């Protein structure tokens, strides 16, 4: 049996000392070892995107990365998106525009959009729809997700967060 690795994982700016088998995916480590269950597991083969998190600011599938690989990297999850009680503009836009129903895919969409907008704040409407095709949603038919991200992109461009 493979031995466990003792590593420090930095998630949302906070250090977590974890002892993990190398076979544990980052998604499982975040959920089970760090107690951050906002990252959801929908397919474990990289298609649905429910487990999308940011690793060094890039959106990645946390089911397709092992936890040990996130050592010395900055991981961000949905739990770190809001600023205290103030929702991130993406969260606010999803709320106001009914960008979620069951909410299971929502953390993945939020982190996908957050990462993509950080890389390119000036994405066109078509580019936004294209990037959002990375993840699956079964409830909304996508249009309110697309609308929410477009609105949040405008809000983010308009000014820094309060």
């Amino acid at each position: 049996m493979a031995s466990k690795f003792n590593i420090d994982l930095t998630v949302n700016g906070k250090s977590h000392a974890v002892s993990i088998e190398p076979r544990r995916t980052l998604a499982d480590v975040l959920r089970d070892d760090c107690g951050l269950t906002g990252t959801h597991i929908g397919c474990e083969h990289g298609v649905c995107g429910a487990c999308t998190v940011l690793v060094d600011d890039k959106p990645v599938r946390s089911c397709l990365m092992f936890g040990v690989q996130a050592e010395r990297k900055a991981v961000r999850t949905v739990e770190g998106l809001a600023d205290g009680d103030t929702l991130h503009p993406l969260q606010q836009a999803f709320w106001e525009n009914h960008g979620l129903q069951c909410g299971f895919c929502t953390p993945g969409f939020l982190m996908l959009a957050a990462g993509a907008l950080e890389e390119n704040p000036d994405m066109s409407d078509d580019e936004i729809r294209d990037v959002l095709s990375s993840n699956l949603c079964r409830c909304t038919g996508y249009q309110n997700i697309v609308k929410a991200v477009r609105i949040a992109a405008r809000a983010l461009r308009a000014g820094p967060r309060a």
Partner: protein
Amino acid sequence: MNWIGRSLPRLEDPSLLKGNGSYVADRIGNAASVRFVRSPLARGAITGIEIPSGTVVFTGRDLSGVKPIRPILHRPDYVAIGQPVLPVDRVTFCGQAVAVVVAEDPARAEDIADRVFVDIEGENAIVDLDAALATGTAPVHPEAVSNVLVEGRMKTAGLDTAFEEAAEIVTLELRSHRQSAAPMENRGGVAVYDVASGRVTLTASVQMPHMLRTGIADALGMTESDLRVIAPDVGGGFGQKMSLFPEYVVLVWLARKLKRDVAWIEDRRENFTASAHGRDQAFSLRGAFAKDGRLLGLDADLRSNVGAFSCYPVTCGVEPLMALAELPGPYDLAEYGVRSRGVTTNTCMMAPYRGVSRPMLTFSMERLMEVAATRLGIDSVEIRRRNLITAFPHRSPTGLVYDEGSYLQAMEAAAKSVDLPAFRARQAAARLRGHFLGVGFSVFSERTGYGTPAYAARGMEIVPGYEIVDCTMDPSGDVVLRIGSSPHGQGLKTSLAQLVSDELGIEPHRIRIISGDTDATPYGWGTFASRSMVIAGGASKLAAGKVAHKLKTIAAQLMETTAESITLENGWARVSNSNQATAIGVLARAAYHQSHRFKGLSPGLHESAVYDPGGTFSNACHVAIVEVDIETGGTRIERFIVVEDAGVLINPMIVDGQIAGGVAQGIANALFEEIIYDESGNLLTASFADYLPPTSAEVPEIEIIHMETVSPESITKAKGVGEGGAIGAPAAVVNAIVDALSPFGIQLFELPATPQRIREQLRRAGVATHG
């Protein structure tokens, strides 16, 4: 202040947006991990199961005292089949659970499951619907020698005459391939054992928690009070999470056997192989049309592949009997003959999936109308105009009574919204440039919010339908609503809060709704069949209305007036035509703490109500404009318009979300998703790389227009809207594709209309890609 009719942002959302949602996989705690060993073969005799030493593994022999899951329909043509929670001697579909592993974590449980060898003497599996009906086939279950588990028939007296008098008889063979609801959250359950009481609490991702408790208690021979079932946040269900599955029975059995907490979180491959499927249907239709396009008679042979077992509690009758009863849809049809069968095969069980039969029957009727229109030289819209129901209440040949609707008006509005003459001009111009655009219509009815009479008519032993709601206002004037229904992500709590707010004159955020906990809610049926807003909404309105009446009585006594002159609004009880008012909080406190003052009233503010309606029909018209690439068979939906009549909208934003989400699943049904087995019954589409839900790149903007017919059949004036999107879209999309390809004379009668299937028809029509 009216809360009904406002697009209030949902009360459910802030926690979900912050990652604080609580789904079953988030509630595992210290539970041991459960993994099911599943049959690698679709059919055969179990000759042995080898269990690695030193592991905790149970098989069907260990669970011999557990009763099979055996749902009943009281009909002479129904064959009851028992589904063993773990089989002892035979496997009946590939993926069926045959043993269960308990280990310290999921990976180790899977390691052990890999080493459990199930020896099976394989037999030829029956996979295909029509193969199962062929004579000489070894039956899937000995109880059903013809492989038919349920069969319904009817024929009106004048059907033969209708066909004799017909100017045109249209005969169609239609096929819908199998689909999965594929909710983003898979199934799962955590069974927690309480050492002190011996009680088990099962938290599970389900749509019918009360039913699950009854079913598990029956299977295990335990009293219901020893089991508590909780449905936490549920990540979508769409019908798949209605049924009682063997895994949940096994979980509770394990918790009691091992006296410890156990958790099973289904993975995606299991969800595809062993949860539930739907829509595997073949319909043969004959329509008798008069010269003017009126449908005089319809004769139908309907076959539904119900898989290996019958789903509990609604049974394998759900698709075939729905098809039988509702095939005529929105059309004024006098003569109808039908035979509808549910056919068992060595495949995963069929269970309700959003729309249940109606996507296929709408597809069938709407294709029939199109073919008849073409043959008779009548315009698509005109032929429907001549056949749609316009007088209400309307009684269908199967005895269904349709309440007020707007079938014709909805279609006219839809036709207007696409500006058909302008579209035809654009279509003609595009064809000259080698671009093939088409428009397709789909008109349908959606029977929603039906109570016990409808289910009793099917002969169900377990008759669902009503909902009970308890409404309590506490001394500070806040309200708790306990509902038997159980949402799975559709925003029911917000909509109910809006309804109750208007009854009680307080703001929605002061209403807390408790659902999905058998310890904390009255018995109820859950979420399915587009019923929650009509039935749970109706019961909520009634219960809140009773509390409101009591508040008014108290207010009247305090302000020395009559209850009839009191209105409740914005937190106040006001006396009409005066400045007199008392805060609702003051009345609430008085109800509890000064109850001696109110003669004839019981203390407190706690009321209960039941609603059990007959049902109401929503209706809609969908229009798709689709472009087809004749060289690849690829399609692009340019526009999709829905004219929907679901009565009064409680929260328009939520209603639109239901429609758009339903349409996306309908588009998936039309173009993308297909469960495929090989001829041995192995599932070939067990991942999202092979089973293809569409993404934001494939689903267009959905344009929605509302009509609001008020029906006396719903006390909230709302009709159901959960399924309509999925029902109407396949027909509209395929009709549009056929219209686009009309220069080639191509017809399509198969769902999904994949690029390959479209291209095959084009190839047959002589359209080469290499010219």
